[in-house]
């Protein structure tokens, strides 16, 4: 009973009354109790996730010194589970931006998060939302941004089609934000030292040492041949980089799945390219004409 009360006190699931203005004493009391609770072994998986979810929005505002959470967050950031990593990342983000937390090798850890399993994780959308924010800084080294772009492009070769639009657009935005990495797109064969080999070191952990800037985004070129028309057009948009200098919104792309794509495909009206009349939509659908082939050989 007591425990439940404590949990209720620490992580209130109900909506908080906004009128409460807690004094500093209250906040300090809360700090100590919370840290004591977290260091104890009473936390099971569900509660752990719930804590992580609540940290950025509910717990941190109630704390006197949120930096005390840094230990907890880093430890959860270094666990195996992708979900807890992402959630911890959100908490860390708040600490980094609002409470001047110093986090060494932050981007390196972020970079190591980028694996194929990430796309099966539960909080994928949240991660890419955060990643978008982290990579918005204009003070990032070119090597680092290039590594991220290259790694994402590599991953894009293996991820399901609904995420491909997101990743391609993400790289596209990176290219617009950091025009230096555009060298990866339109590399002339004479410029690079060794045109035959890809200079990118995929096994390297440090994003600053991957030589990604010497590589090229062949993966995007491959994705222009993607089977789905939307993905292909997304990838083809890279060819218009010089003409258009505005980023694309990725928030709509964060949470898409097959069902949505299917709905979209079915309800899409195909504009006939010949007539170029945008108001007129063709309802006809082309059919096969080859009658000589058998269905099953």
């Amino acid at each position, binding site marked *: 009973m007591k425990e439940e009360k404590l949990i209720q006190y620490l992580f209130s699931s109900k909506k908080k009354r906004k009128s409460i203005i807690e004094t500093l004493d209250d906040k300090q009391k809360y700090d100590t109790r919370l840290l004591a609770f977290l260091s104890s072994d009473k936390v099971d998986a569900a509660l752990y996730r719930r804590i992580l979810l609540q940290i950025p929005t509910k717990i941190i505002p109630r704390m006197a010194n949120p930096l005390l959470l840094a230990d907890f967050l880093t430890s959860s950031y270094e666990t195996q589970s992708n979900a807890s990593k992402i959630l911890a990342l959100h908490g860390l983000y708040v600490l980094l931006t609002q409470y001047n937390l110093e986090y060494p090798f932050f981007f390196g850890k972020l970079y190591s998060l980028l694996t194929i399993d990430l796309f099966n994780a539960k909080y994928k959308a949240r991660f890419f939302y955060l990643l978008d924010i982290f990579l918005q800084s204009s003070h990032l080294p070119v090597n680092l941004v290039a590594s991220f772009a290259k790694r994402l492009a590599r991953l894009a070769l*293996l991820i399901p089609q609904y995420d491909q639009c997101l990743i391609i657009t993400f790289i596209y935005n990176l290219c617009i934000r950091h025009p230096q990495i555009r060298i990866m797109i339109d590399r002339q064969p004479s410029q690079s030292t060794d045109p035959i080999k*890809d200079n990118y070191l995929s096994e390297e952990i440090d994003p600053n040492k991957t030589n990604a800037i010497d590589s090229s985004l062949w993966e995007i070129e491959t994705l222009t041949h*993607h089977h789905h028309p939307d993905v292909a057009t997304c990838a*083809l948009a890279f060819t218009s*980089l010089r003409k258009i200098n505005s980023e694309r919104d990725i928030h709509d792309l964060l949470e898409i799945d097959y069902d949505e794509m*299917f709905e979209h495909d079915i309800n899409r009206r195909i504009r006939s390219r010949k007539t170029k009349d945008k108001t007129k939509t063709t309802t006809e659908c082309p059919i096969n004409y080859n009658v000589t082939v058998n269905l099953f050989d």
Partner: protein
Amino acid sequence: MVKKTSSKPKKRRTFAADKHNTKTRTDVVNKSNPFDLHVNRLKHDVLGKRRNYEKGGQPLKSRSRGIEKRKRTLLKELNSVFKKNTFIDYRLGENDPTLTNDEKLMQRLIAERSKTRLGKESRYNLNDEEDLTHYGQSLSKSDELNQKPVVDDYDDDDLNKGRLKSDSFFGGFQNPNDQRKPQSKKEWIEDMIKSTKLDKYERQRENEKVFDLTSNLDEQWKALSKLINVKERQSKDIKETADDFDKLVSSLKFEAKTTGVPVKTIAEREKEAAERLKTLQIAESERMERPTLKSILAKNRPQTHLSVEELDESYYILDGTKRRVTFDDENEADKNGTLPTEETTTDNGDDSTPVDNEEQGDNDDDEEEEEEEAEEKTNGDLVAEFEEIPSSLDILQNRIREDKNTINIIWKRIRDKRLPPIPKVVLSNYFDVLLDYYVSIKPNQVIYNKVSKILLDLLQSINNDQTKANILNRLKQYHVTLSEQIEEEKFCQVDLSFVVFLKLITYLYPTSDFRHPITTPALTLLIQAVHHASLNSLSSCRQALLLIELTKQWISKTTRYVPEVIVLLMKLLQLACPTGKSKHVLSCSSKQSGNNQLIVINKNIDLSKSTKLTVFSDNDLDDDDNDEHLAMILQTCLNSLIDFLNIYQSLSAIVEIAQPFKSLVQTIAETSKCNQISLKSREVLTLIDTIQTTCLTNRKHLEQGKEQTKILRLYEPRFGPVYEGKKNTRLPKEHAERMGLRRKYKRELKSTTRALILDNQFIAREELRQQMEKDTQRKRKVKDILSELSMQEGEYRKLQKTK
């Protein structure tokens, strides 16, 4: 005036003088009078300047012309200036001096005549109302009196018919048998006349009778005609069942009607078909192309008042579910409408199936009439109308149970051009039914091929919204079941009908299109199934391989990249790798595949006799002795990996795509206990190597696109109007216009004042002339009077003297 006065005495001159004068006049006409020349001396000779005045003016000539003109105009006005009225002679021909007296008379006569005859119709009458008379009596009347009544009914046939016997003429010949008593001539003639009159009368009576009869008959016929028609129709219906010959005749009749177009030769037809095929191929390849950069740019161009969602088509509109394609609703409504009718037809069909064949013969005759009414009927009625085309799956299955050849028979009926064409609604309904049948039957290669061929043919004749909506609805159903399954278990195992149906779609619709209303969502569905394919058992692995095979078929033509398939292949190969031998690139979740070593082969199996993996092999794969199946699956897996690598070898990132397979296949090659499998894996390895090297030699880079060239701003020279030698060319146009007008006004004022002065001079001269004329007359008259008076005085004095 001066000239005029001078010309008068000239006429009175002698002949010689006159002659001379005329000669000089002609000279004047021909060449200008040297004394009548006014030449301005040229002060400055300017080159290139037009000199109009060089010919010199002719002041005398122009002056005389002016005077003549004034005489014609001003003088006349002057003469009538203060006069109130004048006489105008309107007599015919009086004003024309060229007419002679006779001609004037003629004109007047014509006018008089035309005045008396009014109206158009009498215009061309020559002597209509001229009533000629003779001794006071009009001749026309006397004509009337002289007319005799005409015998109208006299026809020469009388002679031929022998009514007037030959003996009435020329006294006749003596008839020996005739023993008439001699008659007096008068009697005889009277007799003859009587007989002829009687004859005539009788003939008239006869004619009248005949006419009456015919008219009566006509009326009766008209009254009867309707009844008779109805009777005829009924008789047609009652007519006994037509035999084969009759049918043939009727069909031939129909054929003759329909084939009005010139019959095409086989060569022509082939040519046409080839052309059509060519255009279709071109259209297909056009659709296959990716959108050009320009169109993408056009899509991406930020439009002023549009939201972000509309910025790019490729973005998913999150509330896309709200938008519905309109025909969905229509289709649903359609379905609701047709459902009850379908039920009724099934009832009918069950009852009438044995009679069906007998009725068919009758239907052929009746269908012509029915077809006209067909359009007025609703769809449901239409479907019921053509009973030989089954309207639901039950009917079709019943009929197939009775006769295995039913589908062919129906297809023949549809193709038969001699019979009336079947409306498209019925055909699309049949398309639906056939699709149902296709999905419902057990896997059988022959039937699948046959039905799919018929479906394609059907689709080619009726490719409309209904068929499209039909297919889409089926896709939606499959999607719903699939996503339900995924939601429950995270991974799914599709059933065979799904695979078969998607296979059919590849057969019916072009999969190579960049964007297609049916194949694009179908492929999305397929990829979803691939992505969530469960690998728990061998049969599910087989299912997954079937899906991969299907995808390969889908994208083989256009070499489109499908990452999910690559991932699935990778997972499958991972299952074949013994643990600990190689590190796994992908982590398979436990739900997807329970056994990590599912297809690890532990025996050496001879694979030479094992068949290819098809839909039709139905045996259970998860029994005890599964090594053979296992090896088969692994082999198929490697085969499809080879296929995909071959398809994708042109992609620029094939090195990265193939890289993870390398280690997997390597371990399989090393650890596999089956020789053929390890051989195969070596083959794959070499293939990967060759592909990677060829790809690395010339990799295609992603192009950034050309930078838009900015046009240099050039300063163009300013072009002014051509210099015309005038100073004020640069002045504004209005001003120039104003100046021009002012100049014009000045010039005109000058000329007008001059004309006025000249007019005044002329008037003064004229008035002076008239005054002088009057004065001289007066003087003469006074002189006369005075002379008379002096004469009188002289006479008087004489008288006085004599007295």
